[in-house]
């Protein structure tokens, strides 16, 4: 009994010692509580690449306010619980004034109150839930909210004259939120949603859901899916000989989807927040990417993460390395800032707007959809 408590205290001591010894501040540290493991680690890896690229570029040009910036990654394990721990650690142990927040909206929203409470700026480059920044004035997003995209999908359906569609969506915060916006807009515009089919993430078999969705042979089916789920589903739909027009959201627009599902995704269309890939900035970004990683497979939302790091660096440059400085400067540096993803001016809810485009898969390539 005694021995065990002895061991416990030693353990406690060790963990205390392991706590970082305060080093001289030779860099500006930025926290990043992103998913490096767990269910959405597939996305997290891509984000990290984009963030690293931006950091390297900024430091190559002398960093921010005379010092280099450094990203402290903290794994959020894709669960809300660990997001809270990760953010808390970044705030209290590493004492960062600004944090790149978790990706999935639910994870982000779990961690946001912690940042707000501690008055630390937290940004999201991919959370799409409308209520994302509600936690307070320290919470920002550089990604357009679902309100816009949901309307975009609804408009697309109307434009293509699909007045009666069933909707399938991945049963998580993103899918449900987008579905709600879509249904609301679609109904308002006179469309009819024939069936709503939520499905679980990470399944290997979606035939049952597909059968139910295609009951009555609808001309088009709206499917708000992720990469992995989408690839399984479209493959199975192809095998089952389902002939319908698939309409997706932005989360499925990824080279990985085509890689996984091959010709089964040929002809699917979807909306995505659009930004011109013809601008000089974008070309520069792409060539930087190719130089660093050797391919042009820019991961989904990679551009947003890239822009976000640039915004943070600029904010530090202008407002200084304090959370309030960064918070105030963010509005100013973002005003009229055109990164690779277009205008990043923050609105009063600390979010950004965007235009929506339509993508499609043709001959194994993701291209802009033209009627």
């Amino acid at each position, binding site marked *: 009994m005694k021995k065990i408590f002895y061991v416990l205290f030693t353990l406690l001591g060790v963990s205390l010692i392991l706590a970082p010894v305060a080093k001289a501040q030779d860099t500006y540290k930025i926290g990043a509580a992103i998913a490096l*493991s*767990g*269910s959405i*680690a*597939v996305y997290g890896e891509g984000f990290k690449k984009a963030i690293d690229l931006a950091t390297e570029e900024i430091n190559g040009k002398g960093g921010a306010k005379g010092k280099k910036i450094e990203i402290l990654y903290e794994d959020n394990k894709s669960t809300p619980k660990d997001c809270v721990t990760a953010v808390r650690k970044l705030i209290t142990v590493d004492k960062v004034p600004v944090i790149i927040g978790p990706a999935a909206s639910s994870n982000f929203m779990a961690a946001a109150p912690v940042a707000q409470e501690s008055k630390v700026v937290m940004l999201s480059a991919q959370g799409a839930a409308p209520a994302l920044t509600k936690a307070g004035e320290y919470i920002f997003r550089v990604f357009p909210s679902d309100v816009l995209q949901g309307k975009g999908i609804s408009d697309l359906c109307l434009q293509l004259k699909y007045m009666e569609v069933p909707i399938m969506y991945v*049963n998580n915060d993103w899918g449900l939120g987008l579905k709600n916006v879509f249904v609301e807009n679609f109904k308002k515009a006179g469309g009819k949603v024939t069936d709503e*089919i*939520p*499905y*679980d993430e*990470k*399944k*290997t*078999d979606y*035939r*049952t*859901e597909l*059968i*139910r969705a295609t*009951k009555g042979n609808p001309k088009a089916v709206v499917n708000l899916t992720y990469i*992995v789920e989408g*690839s*399984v589903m479209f*493959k*199975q739909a*192809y*095998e*089952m*000989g389902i002939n319908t027009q698939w309409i997706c959201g932005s989360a499925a627009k990824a080279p990985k989807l085509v890689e*996984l*599902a*091959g*010709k*089964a995704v040929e002809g699917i269309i979807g909306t995505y927040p659009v930004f011109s890939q013809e601008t000089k900035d974008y070309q520069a970004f792409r060539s930087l990417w190719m130089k660093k990683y050797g391919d042009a497979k820019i991961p989904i939302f990679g551009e947003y993460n890239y822009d976000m790091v640039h915004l943070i660096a600029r904010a530090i440059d202008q407002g200084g390395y304090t959370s309030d400085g960064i918070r105030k400067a963010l509005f100013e540096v973002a005003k009229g800032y055109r990164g690779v993803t277009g205008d990043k001016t923050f609105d009063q809810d600390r979010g950004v707007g965007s235009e929506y485009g339509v993508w499609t898969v043709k001959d194994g390539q993701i291209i802009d959809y033209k009627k």
Partner: protein
Amino acid sequence: MTFLLQSIFNGLLAGCIYALFAMGLTLIYGVLNFVNFAHGELIMWGAYFLYLFMESPLGLPLPIALIPALCLTILLGLSMDRFAFKPLRQANRLTLLITALGLSFFLRNGAQLFWGAELRTYGFEIKRGWKIFNISITTNQIAIILTTLVCIAVVYLLLHRSRIGKSMRAVSDNLELARVAGINTRRTIRFAWIMSSSLACIGGILLALDTNLQPGMGMINLVKAFAAILLGGVGNIWGALLGGIVIGFAENLGVLIISTGYKDAIAFGIMVLLLLLKPPILYGSQD
């Protein structure tokens, strides 16, 4: 109508896979009298082993890659027994169950360490299914049904015609008695693991052929297999088969009525309902 037929066919298909898993699980349950939670991971590793041999640098064709994959899965099954369960032969059920749970957790994350959490495929060209009576059937699906039938036949012959099968059934009935009667229980247990692992490997590969590979693929389907076993009667091979098919049907037909969000609840619902209707097992906990 097509729609109903397709559901029934899909139910049959899912049932076949569940049945393969359930049979493997029930074999171990019969001989060692505990639920091997880690069976799902045998399934998953079986599928990944095939992937290992089919991908570069080896790039073997499927029929050849099947052989080392099967061997490795059996080896994994045997080492599971050797290192985790054998030291606990005399332990109580709770201990065994927790061990199996830990093992399952260990192996699942092991696969993730090796191959990552992302989805993988064997990389076959996808094909449109054939239309028979307006329901679509793919080559893989025919293979699943045929393989299941072959597996059932082999299991049946092994259990009822071979000597080792007979001793297995004897051990199933009563381990102590079998030992007294001069049956080599060690060999029998080893054989049970070999059979169980082979079934897991084959089932896993079929599942992955039909769908994809993912570290969590075993666990999800194993839970259904549990339900199938309970449905068909614990330790009963044929019950497992029947239970698997019933669960497959119920899931596929059930979601036509209720929300698909509850698809996985159907198997459990059936299970709980059945347990409530069954006569209470009052004092059987000590057998």
